[in-house]
């Protein structure tokens, strides 16, 4: 070593959205440290919303200005390409609306550390004046920053760091629910333990791949594979362990067990953030790893992912049938949708044109599914029992008679999940399945029949899933309301805005899919930087 230190080149302009979010998060920590309690929330809310909006504006500037980079940034650590920017935009929009939900009073506990039901907790509650933990805001910003970093990581170490930056705040946030404290803390604990477990897999896999390729950079790994033996057990084991870490984050079977427990226990606005933002980020990372890093290995990973996708769709839709808790049901629905998305991932191989096509389908699906999900969870926050949200499905009976508008909106979201035409969900599913079928017809591809088979599994799973979505609609509109039914909270302006925006997007894209599909197409056509 001759000690020549070269200062790294950082493309500040390109990375500005990341820097804004992380910067605001750090300012948030300072606010927590120095601002008096009564000032904290009034500072946090505009700070958080402005930074997210600002980051989104910066993304827009890059896209509009045609400054989408074609090479990796930050010394090859990050790749800010078309798909990354699209995913950033989606995550920023979703997190912005989630923050509007978070602003609502009453979701977060005043002191998460206090034993539930203890005198300490009551005291903290009395002091906080119902505001709860204001640390929520910087934590959310860190998590969002991690979500932005995750799909843009160009090497495995960076990706691991991003994974942790995204996950750690989420573990904490899960435990902050004001009601049903024990359930919330349990969720937080489980999520942390299992998350740490899967991170270890990810890291171990990274190490083994490094052992094979001598580099952690994704294109480097791909080059090493092209030059070396792709059947090296070191590579295959490394890849499978890496896959476990990633599949855990998207909740694919058999790594889905955490999802229902965590979604149920976490404060609902945080569930909305995880079900939308985290899923989008994780799929971005999955696509990048599989396509950029392991593009030359597709003969090996595709059969395995085939099984995982089929299993995920089946497990998600079948298990959802017997759920009696609305958030658990939505969690299983999220698992099933992860399966549908994996069908799209299966289709990302072959010619560049095909790649762009299936990439477009997945990006579109992620965007519209995320928006609908946030809307659905926003409705869930409004149906309340004395002890918190009325989670049990029996409490939703006859809601259509008591609150027809709200029940109607929720029914519409459910129809969108089920993929009924004239909703955005229909076009999402259609695009993904069509891409999968098309990819199976490429010349010289022996997987063609298998792709068709997977689509059949997907359609059957959709049919099963439609059953439990429609069951809730039937319950809401065709059952008699319970005598002491849940209260319907008067929504705040923020919640109204969230529901309205979600509804508008779900309807609008359903009628005019080209609006989002066009943007997704533009983003996908530049493909990932290899």
């Amino acid at each position, binding site marked *: 070593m001759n000690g020549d230190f070269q200062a790294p080149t950082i493309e500040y302009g390109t990375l500005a959205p990341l820097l804004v979010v992380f910067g605001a998060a750090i300012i948030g920590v300072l606010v927590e440290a120095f601002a008096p309690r009564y000032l904290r929330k009034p500072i946090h809310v505009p700070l958080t919303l402005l930074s997210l909006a600002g980051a989104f504006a910066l993304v827009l500037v890059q896209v509009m200005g045609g400054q989408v980079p074609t090479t990796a940034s930050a010394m090859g650590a990050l790749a800010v390409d078309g798909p990354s920017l699209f995913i950033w935009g989606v995550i920023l929009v979703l997190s912005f609306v989630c923050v509007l939900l978070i602003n609502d009073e009453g979701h977060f506990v005043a002191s998460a550390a206090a034993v539930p039901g203890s005198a300490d907790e009551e005291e903290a509650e009395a002091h906080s004046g119902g505001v709860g933990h204001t640390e929520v805001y910087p934590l959310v910003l860190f998590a969002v920053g991690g979500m932005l970093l995750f799909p843009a990581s160009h090497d495995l170490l960076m990706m691991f760091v991003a994974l942790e930056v995204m996950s750690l705040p989420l573990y904490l946030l899960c435990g902050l629910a004001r009601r049903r404290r024990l359930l919330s803390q349990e969720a937080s*604990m*489980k999520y942390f*333990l*299992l998350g740490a*477990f*899967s991170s270890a*897999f990810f890291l171990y896999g990274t190490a083994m791949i490094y052992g094979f390729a001598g580099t952690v950079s994704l294109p480097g790994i791909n080059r090493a594979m092209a030059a070396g033996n*792709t*059947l090296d*057990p070191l590579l*295959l*084991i490394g*890849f*499978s*362990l890496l*896959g*476990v870490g990633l599949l*855990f984050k998207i909740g694919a*079977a*058999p*790594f889905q*067990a*955490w999802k*229902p*427990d965590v979604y149920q226990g976490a404060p609902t606005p945080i569930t909305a953030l995880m079900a939308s933002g985290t899923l989008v980020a994780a799929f971005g990372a999955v696509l990048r790893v599989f396509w950029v890093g392991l593009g030359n290995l597709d*003969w*090996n*990973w595709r*059969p*395995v992912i085939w*099984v*995982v996708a089929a299993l995920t769709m089946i*497990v998600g839709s*079948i*298990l*959802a*049938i*017997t759920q009696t808790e609305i958030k658990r049901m939505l969690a299983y629905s999220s698992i099933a949708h992860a399966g549908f998305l994996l069908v799209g991932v299966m289709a990302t191989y072959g010619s560049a044109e095909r790649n762009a096509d299936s990439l477009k389908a997945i990006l579109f699906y992620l965007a519209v599914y995320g928006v609908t999900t946030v809307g659905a969870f926003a409705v869930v926050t409004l149906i309340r029992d004395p002890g918190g949200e009325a989670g049990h499905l029996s409490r939703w009976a006859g809601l259509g008679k008591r609150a027809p508008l709200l029940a109607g909106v929720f029914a519409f979201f459910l129809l969108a999940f089920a993929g009924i035409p004239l909703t955005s969900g229909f*076009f999402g599913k*259609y*695009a993904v399945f*069509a891409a999968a079928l098309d990819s199976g017809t490429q010349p010289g591809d022996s997987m063609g029949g298998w792709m068709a088979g997977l689509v059949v599994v997907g359609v059957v799973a959709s049919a*099963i899933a439609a059953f439990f979505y429609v069951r809730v609609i039937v319950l809401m509109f065709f059952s008699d309301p319970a005598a002491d039914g849940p209260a319907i909270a008067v929504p705040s302006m923020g919640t109204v805005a969230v529901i309205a925006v979600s509804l508008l997007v779900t309807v609008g894209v359903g009628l*005019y*899919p*080209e609006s989002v*599909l066009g943007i997704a197409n533009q983003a996908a056509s530049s493909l990932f930087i290899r």
Partner: protein
Amino acid sequence: MESQLAEIAQHTGGVIGNAWLMIAFPLVGAFILLVFNRFTNRWGHLLGVAMSLASFVVAVLAFVELLGFGPEERRRAVHLYEFIPGMVDMGLLIDPLSISFALLITGVGSLIHIYSIGYMSHDEHRRRFFSYLNLFVAAMLLLVLADNYVGLFIGWEGVGLASYLLIGFWQFKPSAATAAKKAFVVNRVGDFGLLVGMFVIWTTFGTLTFKGLGEQIAPGTQNGTMLAIGLLLLLGACGKSAQLPLQSWLLDAMEGPTPVSALIHAATMVTAGVYLVVRSGAFFFPEGSGAALAVAIVGAVTLLAGAIIGCAKDDIKKGLAGSTMSQIGYMMLGAGLGPAGYAFAIGHLITHGFFKADMFLGAGSVMHGMNDEVDMRKYGALRKVMPITFVTFFIGYLAIIGFPLLSGYFTKDGIIETAVHHQPILGWLAVLGAGITGFYMSRMIFMTFFGEKRWADDAHPHESPLVMTVPLMILSLGSIFLGGYLILSNRLLDWLTPAVGAPAERPEFHFTSVPGLATLALVAVGAIIAWMKYGRVPVPAVQPRGSFLTTFARRDLYGDALNESLFMRPGQWLTRLAVFFDNRGIDGVVNGLAAGIGGSSGRLRRIQTGFARTYALSILIGAALLTGALLFVGNI
């Protein structure tokens, strides 16, 4: 080989490029009125009228712009957006045919909007009424302007919905609610035909756009598939246009407010079937094909059935409904004759839109003055108290019976002469139908406006306000002059030719042809019989028992009874039978399947123990399986 129908120029900019505004205006109107409901109560009706008028203005401007092109360039396609990727792009086709319909829909539609301000002024739900009217106009415009069958179908369903909502507008009346349901169900049968027809088109040709079909189908192609498509589309047309055997809903549909009957069930929506046949004519109903013959036969039979029903009705609106059936029968007959008949069919459609709307609104005006009484046996001698209504109604009457030189004379006579030329039997049936028309329309006039007063005690008939009578005047002007303008020197024919194709020989209008003179003679005979039965002698205030034939007509030719015994009863039996087998056999399988899924769900659920250690174990096992599988696959 390409037909000339594939020659569609792509168009951007100008009024035509923004023709979607035509649909958007009323759609936005309906949206605002429905969403902001009570807040718009005070000015909602004005917004509704404004939106309809705005749409009319766009239609007129687009029409003027279209006139600026040479006849060969008058088919303009406007691409809007990709609707279902890889399958259907949403686009509009602005051509002479669609713009003619658009002018009729928005023009007559606007007049009826204006009329409704007065007619519905006492109804507390007037705002909702206008939102439905706007919705209807938007859907109907989509139906005729779309450049593909999918868009047409969405509009088709949209007008079905609007019609359902409007027939059942006074849903507190059980009869109205039932009528709405009946219209919906019967229409469903037709929609099914249209839908299956579209499926077959898509699987056969891989496209649903008119342009794409024009490129693929050589003119005059006939084979089994084409015949099947034609008959399926005809089934759709029969449902929407109330043609036999799907006519039964139209008479009941008169339960809706009268402007609805005028707008939807006389002037516009019921002509959608004619539009479908004419638009698809070059593809699936070529001259001399079996499908075209089927259209003509359906038309001829319906025109007689409608006329016979019209003879026996004492309810003024139901009488007019029977006549609507009959007149649309004429249009279908014309549409089944190939390009030679299209111009007359469309011409009759347009003039009928005027004189029938005129008479329906006139009937509404009468009802407005008579406490919503519809029984003509309780009218009589109204010409003196309602002079404007009488004069306008009388003009509509002269037009529909084909009094020389009025609108109906030219268009109906055109259809009859072409039919006699191409299909003599059907043509002479149409002549007979014209005679019966002369009878029942005269009967209506005599019973309503002549004779002595047979009013109920509390009736104080009065002339309607100007907001209602001015539309009547405008419509009666159209009823007088429009027909001659369109038919003489073949103006409409030449205008439509780029869109529907040219006939083999140019028709000439003869004032003294044999079928024409025979028609006039029969009409005169019909009118004289009506005068002898209803003008010369007093009309009994209570319906007499009547002969077997009268009862036959009064009961709508036993259409409902036929439906009931042929479809409803056997249907109910079949359902019961099916339920029986379903419970025993199929349900066993289905329930077994559902129970199987549910049961596996219940069993799988037990894996979800709630213990983090079990979850971690499942991750570990999953990781082991994944690794094993990868190694295995890698080593095959």
